[in-house]
């Protein structure tokens, strides 16, 4: 799960203070499990160092919360690359995928493409597993089946999400 890419995505809409950033992230992507302050600063300083964000301005007062960050062109390219890259299909992917979809919707990118690309990747893996299963012994088959069922569950989620994209867009877009 990439907090950095999420921050970049959130900043794409408008420059934000560190504090705003944390609150937006907690609210959208990690309700009930807020980020530590340390995680926020560490991530932001890595992004600053890599030139993906810049400090846009300072508010009166002290501390990083008072700094306002803005995304750079390099940052936007980085988000784009991340969004269009399918995740390696594995269990419990949905939080990353969900983040990607929401960010895409918030930033006006085509979210259905993300889902399609992911879907193709999932099915490709399913085909590989199926092939392995067809040639394998019973133990191998059972292991493969476990993977297949999980992959299928993700795929189903992808299909369902694709079917409800409009509904989701209405929610996340201001």
């Amino acid at each position, binding site marked *: 799960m990439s907090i950095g890419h999420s921050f970049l995505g959130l900043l794409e809409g408008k420059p934000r203070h560190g504090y705003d950033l944390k609150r937006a992230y907690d609210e959208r992507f990690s309700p009930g499990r807020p980020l530590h302050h340390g995680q926020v600063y560490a991530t932001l300083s890595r992004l600053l160092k890599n030139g993906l964000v810049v400090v846009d301005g300072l508010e009166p007062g002290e501390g990083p919360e008072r700094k306002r960050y803005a995304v750079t062109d390099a940052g936007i390219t980085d988000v784009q690359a991340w969004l269009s890259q399918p995740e390696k299909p594995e269990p419990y992917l949905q939080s990353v995928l969900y983040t990607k979809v929401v960010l895409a919707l918030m930033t006006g990118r085509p979210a259905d493409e993300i889902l*399609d*690309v992911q879907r*193709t990747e999932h*099915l490709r893996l399913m*085909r590989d597993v*199926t092939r392995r299963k*067809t040639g394998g012994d019973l133990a191998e088959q059972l292991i493969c089946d476990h993977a*297949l069922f999980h992959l*299928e569950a993700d795929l*189903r989620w992808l299909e369902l999400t694709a079917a409800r994209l409009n509904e989701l867009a209405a929610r996340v877009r201001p």
Partner: protein
Amino acid sequence: MTEPLLVGTDLHKMYGTTPALRGSSLTVRAGEIVAVMGSSGSGKSTLLHCLAGIVRPDDGTVVYAGREISAMSDVERSALRRRDFGFVFQFGQLVPELTCVENVALPLRLDGVRRKEAERRARVWLDRLEVGDVAAKLPGQISGGQGQRVAVARALVTEPKVVFADEPTGALDSLNGEKVMQLLGQAARDTGAAVVLVTHEPRVAAYADREVVVRDGASLDLERVA
């Protein structure tokens, strides 16, 4: 890559005022298994019917082995389906009053093969699909999984170039569904038949070589996009 065997281009089909296909295209190469996926009502079955020459599209062309199916007469299309195509459906496809071996022999007999010879070849296919023991039974007397395997045998007995399978496991449980798909996939590869596999189940689609998604009557070849 081999030459395309079956090419549907920009197919349109209306049922009454309901559009079932709106510019769908699909290319099938010899020997490959293509999964056609999509939600119910997306038009995937209609796409299969058009490709197989069962239904004539309102617009667009279907070309099989260099001949345009969509321009053929009903008689020519029927003959083509008898000789070059095989079919497996979800359910209700076996003639209930014929025994299993007679059901499998039916496509051969429709094409003029003598009864003895047709039933001999039918038995070979029943054995390959591991249902040789139900040859003399009526479809009402066997299980759903056995019935689908008999149907697969019937689809392959003419050694067709393309097998059209419309939700072939739709009425089966996972284990029986897997078995039918394994046997279908294996038999198709052995005979070099291409398979157009319409399904909404990812695990069934995973037996295919590639996937095409039909959405709102249009087909998307996602892998080519990727």
